């Protein structure tokens, strides 16, 4: 399969045939691979998908819950990571902890090693200081964008604890997070309905207590 160019030399087109057939083969391979990848993604989504399309609570099995709170006109991040780090720091000093407290970003947090010795219980008091203000849309958006960056939507779902005065903000925040593809659930909280005498939120990991239920999404 030869052809002569204007300059008088022969171009062997059989090389082109080889190349084109190789390219076609590679394209078919890539098409198959991309199809397989798509199928895998669909399977993964199906496993973790919302079972029914209306606000029925469910448990995203492949995602961890991360909790935030709206109160006092502020948006609070709960300092669970800081508490864990402090426990580890104390343990490295060869000290066991029973209860440990710290204040961070406007939240007074306490961590308690459970009586059974299999997990931790967290107590949070939301203080009227330091946390992002809900009536500053720019700062709040930055805060939410930072959260979305820190907690990827394929690994986490967000739970918002909300007090009555902040319901309007809850709606906006929830809509924004859902628009960004994040799964969101929320829990209404009422004055006087706080867990215990002084704490606004009580959560646990690895605790066995009849008063606790699994955090669900909607």
């Amino acid at each position, binding site marked *: 399969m030869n052809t002569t160019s204007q300059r008088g030399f022969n171009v062997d087109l059989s090389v082109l045939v080889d190349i084109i057939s190789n390219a076609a083969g590679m394209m078919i391979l890539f098409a198959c691979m991309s199809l397989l990848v798509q199928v895998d993604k669909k399977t993964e989504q199906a496993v973790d998908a919302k079972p029914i399309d209306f606000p029925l609570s469910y448990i*995203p099995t492949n995602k961890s819950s991360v909790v935030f709170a709206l109160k006092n006109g502020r948006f609070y991040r709960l300092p669970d990571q800081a508490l864990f780090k402090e426990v580890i720091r104390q343990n490295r000093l060869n000290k066991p902890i029973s209860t440990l407290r710290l204040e961070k970003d406007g939240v007074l947090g306490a961590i308690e090693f459970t009586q*059974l010795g*299999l997990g931790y219980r967290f107590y949070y008091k939301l203080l009227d200081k330091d946390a992002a203000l809900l009536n500053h849309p720019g700062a709040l958006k930055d805060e939410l964008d930072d959260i979305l960056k820190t907690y990827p939507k394929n690994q986490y779902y967000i739970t918002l604890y909300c007090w009555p005065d902040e319901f309007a903000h809850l709606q906006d925040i929830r809509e924004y997070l859902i628009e960004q593809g994040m799964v969101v659930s929320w829990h209404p909280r009422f004055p006087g309905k706080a867990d215990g005498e002084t704490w606004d939120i009580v959560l646990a990991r690895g605790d066995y207590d009849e008063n606790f239920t699994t955090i669900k999404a909607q």
Partner: protein
Amino acid sequence: MNDNSETTLIYNGLIFLVISGCILASATVACWLLLPKEPLPQFNIDMAQSQPMDAGKQKKPWWDQLVDGIRAKVQGKQMVKRDKDSGKNVAVAHGSGVPSTLTSEEQMILRQMIIAEEQLASVEGRPPESAAKRLSTRHGYQPWADYELQRMAARIVGMNYERTRDPALVAEYARTATAVASSDYANFEDYFHAGHANLFAGNIDQARNFLLNAEKQWPVKTGMVRGLNSLMILMCDAISNRQTEFFARLETLQETFQDWMFTEVYLPDLVILEAAHPRAPLLHVLHGRLLDMAYNDAAALQQYRKAEGLVGDSKRVVQSWIEEVEARRK
């Protein structure tokens, strides 16, 4: 070779190089666009790194190495307190009568650190095995330290199995979880995990014993995990065809497992077991009953009808459920 043929060769070569280059470039772009960008599961990478190919000699898994490392640093021979009558390590009771699962302050420090590292890894989205790598192990060898580290290793394998449902992890999960549950220090949580691991490893009788032990020692009567324990006993009974125990427990499932309506948590496991035990019709009965409770009538009927080979009372009970669902659908 004359000038003309040399030019031809050079031009052919150039055409070949240019087109090949284009194809390689487009293939790279296609790879970048189409293939997933997430890194390979960290667990597999770490396992591979910690277990280099060693001709003729298989290295121990990293968690065994971790335990051995501590064993090698024997500093003292202080033993934990043992119960004089039974000769076993017993939990020290404190607080309001709820038993602790710890026997000494040193054990508490290590347990606290392990749980905090595990949970911090989970909160920060790191793979579970990163918790073991960050663990500061200053303890000399003590039986409880051995137990705590094996417990951590078993949980890491378990968490990876729960996350991926990778069948290649099941044997290791069962081995490590069984070792932990066989310790004198084992508690209901260890029995639960050993039951879970052995159920999926196909050691049904062993799984059932662990799960029954867990149920006996469970500190509360409610909660998702306790409900799952009860459900897994049902799965064991279904696979072993223990019809009497199966139907008796199934009757009280809604009371013992308040979170039964969250089918997304446990139905994928049931499907895995159905595939692994195709001759266990009671698994389909269980599957059908759970869907029936959730008013998923069409799917429930489908599962009931898959339960072939039932005889006697079992057949009659399932037939009555089929009739109930059909009547409801009309």
